[in-house]
């Protein structure tokens, strides 16, 4: 039902947003850097005028011109170098941060760019003020040359570095935000998957009948439904719970299913006492058990057995969900594989390569499917 559609929307969303933001987003950073460079030009101009006791407006005109041209030559230079170094986009992202050619190249770009900017800006200043500036290679005193260079090159380096780190920060913030959104989305989808409407409405329909014909059993079923709902809602918030709690939840779920399927569903559990308290991520087994029902036993006319068991293998906890249903590849309804994918992702996030989920045909005469989760468990 809506799960698959929604999944499609959420995966489409970010790229659609990027497309919508398109050209504006691409030109905005350049404009922003140009404006900022202008503002820094004003500040530097005022500082120089006060230091050297020169005319403030004239110095600002020179300084802003130099700053803007420095920005122009450095930003465009950077772009040209990137385009020249990495003709294809893929190679670019493999090397350094996209759009930045690396420290060595950047130093060259900033030096050349700031000198060009200084020369051009001084000419521009001469044009606007009608004055005749003495820029550095015509000056006799080398100390003046170094002094002027310091006023251009040092700010250029500092400001370029500032722009660079701002971009890095913004990117980090964006990826942190994406991660937060992803976590919220997956919580929502998990919850939605737990409260699968078809299961829910069928359960309510059964409850409706039981209230009329067998009130005590109806009450028992309602109790199971309540604890299933409570565990589902809590489980989508908590980060871990004892294995016994996960088993209890699955027992509730399977009991509900048993009211619906009656003798088409047989249940087996095995949880050794010593493993009951081991903490596991909540709702970890639930998708596997649901798959067993949905793809294994529900399509089977005769039904079968679901067997859930925990065991220890050295430093690992091994959880097995086995059904004697129609088996892999024979299911009548093709699923979205959301359940399996979600279990895999959670194991990967929590335990990296230390945990695994395997799904295989159960290798005995009864057939069906076997799902095995291995995850590291602290020793007892």
């Amino acid at each position: 039902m809506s799960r698959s559609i929604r999944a499609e929307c959420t995966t489409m969303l970010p790229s659609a947003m990027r497309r919508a933001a398109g050209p504006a987003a691409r030109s905005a950073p350049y404009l922003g850097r140009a404006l900022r460079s202008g503002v820094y030009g004003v500040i530097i101009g005022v500082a120089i005028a006060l230091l050297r006791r020169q005319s403030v407006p004239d110095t600002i005109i020179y300084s802003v011109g130099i700053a803007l041209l420095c920005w122009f030559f450095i930003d465009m230079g950077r772009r040209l170098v990137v385009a020249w170094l990495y003709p294809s986009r893929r190679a670019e992202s493999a090397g350094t941060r996209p759009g930045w050619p690396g420290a060595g190249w950047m130093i060259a770009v900033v030096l050349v760019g700031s000198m060009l900017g200084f020369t051009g800006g001084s000419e521009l200043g001469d044009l606007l003020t009608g004055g005749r500036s003495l820029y550095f290679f015509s000056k006799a005193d080398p100390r003046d040359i170094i002094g002027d260079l310091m006023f251009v090159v040092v700010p250029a380096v500092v400001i370029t570095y500032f722009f660079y780190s701002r971009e890095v920060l913004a990117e980090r913030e964006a990826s942190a935000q994406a991660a937060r959104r992803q976590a919220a989305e997956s919580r929502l989808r998990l919850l939605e998957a737990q409260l699968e409407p078809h299961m829910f409405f069928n359960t309510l329909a059964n409850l409706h009948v039981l209230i009329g014909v067998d009130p005590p059993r109806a009450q028992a079923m309602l109790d199971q439904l309540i604890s299933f709902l409570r565990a589902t809602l809590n489980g989508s918030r908590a980060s871990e719970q004892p294995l016994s709690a996960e088993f209890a939840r699955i027992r509730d779920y399977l009991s509900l299913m048993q009211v619906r399927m009656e003798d088409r569903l047989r249940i087996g559990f095995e949880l050794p006492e010593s493993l009951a308290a081991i903490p596991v991520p909540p709702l970890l087994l639930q998708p596997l058990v649901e798959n067993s029902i949905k793809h294994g036993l529900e399509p089977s006319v005769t039904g079968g057995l679901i067997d859930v068991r925990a065991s220890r293998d050295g430093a690992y906890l091994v959880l097995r969900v086995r059904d004697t249903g129609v088996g892999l590849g024979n299911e009548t309804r093709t699923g979205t594989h959301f359940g399996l994918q979600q279990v895999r992702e959670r194991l990967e996030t929590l335990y990296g390569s230390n945990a695994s989920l395997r799904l295989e045909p159960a290798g005995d005469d009864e057939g069906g499917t076997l799902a095995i989760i291995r995850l590291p468990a602290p020793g007892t």
Partner: protein
Amino acid sequence: MQSLAASAVIAEDEPLLAARLKATLAQLWPQLRIAAEVSHGAAAVERALALRPDIVFLDIRMPGMSGLEAAEALAEDWPEGAALPLIVFVTAYDQYALSAFEHAAVDYVLKPVDLDRLGVTCRRLQTTLQSREQPTPDLPPQLVASLGALRSALSRPEPTPVPRLKMIQASIGTTIHIVPLAEVLFFEAADKYINVVTARQAYVIRMPLRQLLQHLDPHEFWQIHRATVVRVEAIATAARDDTGKVALTLKGHPARLTASRLYAHLFKAM
């Protein structure tokens, strides 16, 4: 109204819900005889064909064969000259289907079964049965359209586009044969297997037909029967017989295929 005697088959896999439907029907329509109660689609088809009830209640989701597939099978296999039973679908929650049901000529009932709502359905069924004086040899055209609409409404959209099949890997003994899809003339489903027929040879693959269908281009291959899918370009002639079925001959293969009445509408002169 309540005096009309009729018979019905109920197909519902959840025993409590089947009991509830039966009890409610007994209350609303005492003269309705429940000829059989079955718990899966294949049994529904088999019992209905044997007992020829006036009405069949079909749960949409049942093990093995779904209610919709059962309805298609009934429409295809129902004996000529006999009136097809009225079909009522039963569902707890199928959000895509509800609007299709609203527009469909078939009736539907939501679980848990509501007394008033089922009463409306019963009156409608009685009216239809009374007005049906003689058996109609042809399928009611609305039913054909409705089943088609329901079929597409109930098949869940895939989260990712399914890749089109380029070749079929079929095993004969221990050897895997690679059969280019372009050589396949038609597919014929039998139980859990599909016969893959080319001009030269036939192969067997193990796959449900509906799963295979997802991987085929619907313009390249047409389903013409619930068990048959044929390459459109391989069809030479199509001749409609007086029962509404269409007999097909193929180019480059002696096989004769039959398009069922549900799919006969595909074959019209331009």
